């Protein structure tokens, strides 16, 4: 008798064992089928979620136009904002002493300008706005009024010095312009996940704005004549966050690169609180001394 034939196939015990075996195999197969179905469902669902909207649009015909920078803004910067001077108080709220450049990494060439600061000469030359240029204006105590000038241009007005900055998201190839205090600013949104300027990469409603400004007139980082040159480049990052009591704070990180007058980038971060309206808006002209 072979070993195989020794198994009691027709006995009651054998039948019970076969039944168990059958149910086990059947259950496993059913489990596998259900897993496959589940996998398919999950993958289909995930694919649907991950498919960019443009694919659906293509199926219906021409792709829709890309949303404008205004329409696709990941954060809302518009409104009235007031500077809160918790830092560098004696360099911002009053005019520091001539020759005081503490905290600014200046070159020897810049030091000569620092020591030669003459506000009366700036007045006479019509240069009262030298300390209100793009590299310094966010550090000046005052208010910002931020609005959309058009779908591609964010406009920032300051009441201190009555300056206007235009952040262009879609800069046309502009002809060579004469340098100005506020220079030429190119903006882009930054979105979570590194999706610079890419709305498809947006996550939750969060993000920031980066602005690069060049083509400025030479100016002062501080009221007392600490200089930046006409070749300086200003990179700014705008972030917002909540404050207690439903408030909002705007943080502007400013990086000034100027190999002529700075030995390393000059980095400051300034903060503003959002205000309900413009009732405290108080435009004042530039001043060389205050």
């Amino acid at each position, binding site marked *: 008798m072979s070993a195989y034939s020794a198994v009691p196939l027709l006995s009651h015990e054998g039948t019970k064992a076969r039944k168990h075996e059958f149910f086990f195999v059947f259950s496993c197969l059913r489990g596998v089928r259900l*897993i496959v179905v589940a996998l398919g469902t999950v993958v289909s669902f995930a694919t649907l979620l991950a498919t960019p909207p443009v694919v659906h649009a293509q199926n219906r015909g021409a792709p829709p136009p890309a949303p404008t920078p205004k329409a696709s803004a990941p954060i809302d910067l518009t409104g009235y904002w*007031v500077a*809160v*001077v918790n*830092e560098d108080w004696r360099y911002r709220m009053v005019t520091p002493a001539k020759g005081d450049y503490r905290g600014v990494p200046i070159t020897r060439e810049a030091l000569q300008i620092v020591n030669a600061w003459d506000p009366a000469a700036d007045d006479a030359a019509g240069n009262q706005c030298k300390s209100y240029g793009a590299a310094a204006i966010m550090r000046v105590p005052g208010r910002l009024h931020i609005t959309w000038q058009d779908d591609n241009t964010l406009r920032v007005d300051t009441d201190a010095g009555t300056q206007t900055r235009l952040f262009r998201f879609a800069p046309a190839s502009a002809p060579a312009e004469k340098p100005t205090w506020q220079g030429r600013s190119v903006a882009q949104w930054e979105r979570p996940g590194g999706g610079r300027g890419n709305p498809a990469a947006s996550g*939750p409603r969060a993000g920031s704005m980066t602005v690069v400004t060049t083509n400025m007139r030479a100016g002062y980082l501080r009221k007392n004549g600490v200089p930046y040159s006409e070749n300086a480049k200003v990179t700014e990052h705008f972030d917002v966050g909540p404050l*207690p009591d439903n408030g909002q704070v705007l*943080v502007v*990180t400013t990086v000034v690169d100027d190999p002529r007058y700075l030995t390393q980038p000059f980095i400051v971060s300034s*903060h503003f609180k959002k205000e309900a309206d413009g009732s405290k808006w108080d435009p004042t002209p530039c001043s060389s001394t205050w």
Partner: protein
Amino acid sequence: MGSNTVLVNVVTLRTALALLVLLWTPLRLYAQAELVGSWAPRNTEDISRDSFPVDYLGLPLNDEGRTRALTYNESQLAMIERQCEGWPPFYFVQGPFGLKIWSDTEPVKGGTISFTIGAWEDRAPITIWMDGRPHPSKYAEHTREGFTTGHWEGDTLVAFTTHMKAGFIRKNGPPSSDQATMTSRFFRHGDILTVLAVIEDPIYLAEPHIVTKSFELSATPMSPVGPPCVSAFEGKRPGDSVPHFLPEKNPFVDELTKLFHLPREAVLGGVETLYPEYRKKIKDTYVRLEPCKTNCGAPPPR
């Protein structure tokens, strides 16, 4: 049969959940920013490394906070029991040092359990718990480093600190109570890390104190710890009185007014002095300073 059906359903459910987690996790990580590394200070903005004894400029102190601050005598730091007391977590955005940040990860899914901002000699490490644990009971022990939890909002890390010991908002005496809290937001832009800290204190502040500071990513590794603090005799013996100034007797209260022509009310801090209107208020009374002769800035390299 019934038990097999349950088993199959459990397997199916677990598989589906595991897949969802796998699919979701990379998306979630993708939306975050890498904060781990050495972040060097540039110190081109306000830092409290050289404060004058009475310099509360820019602080929204209330009357109680100001009164308490004016009693502070820095000789307290000579007392042996206070030499290694250290400063509260606020100091990480106010001091002159950089940030060494590292993370601990959960070994299976790779999720971040915590970030740690390394210590300095006079500040304890700050651990930011990212695993969803709750803050302790309000009756729990308060420590020098406090208790901090964090979460991501987009690619911004938001941290919330409670359970700090009473201490100081600045090193020269403005106090913080054990009810103070700090909400920090870490904004990374390329190699620049800007930290926004909002300090609330119902006892000593009239409104939240806002501090921002930027750091630059450094290829040079920073130490995760400071040198050990070792107490030694510095002229104060156990049992000696705690150095302090009685009300109206602080001899330094007008030092900044004399040196920089600043109004006393601004030197002593207060909400009104933080806003542009105050600048207009003092414009006509401010006396311009003589040119700076000493300590005017770091000499430029030759």
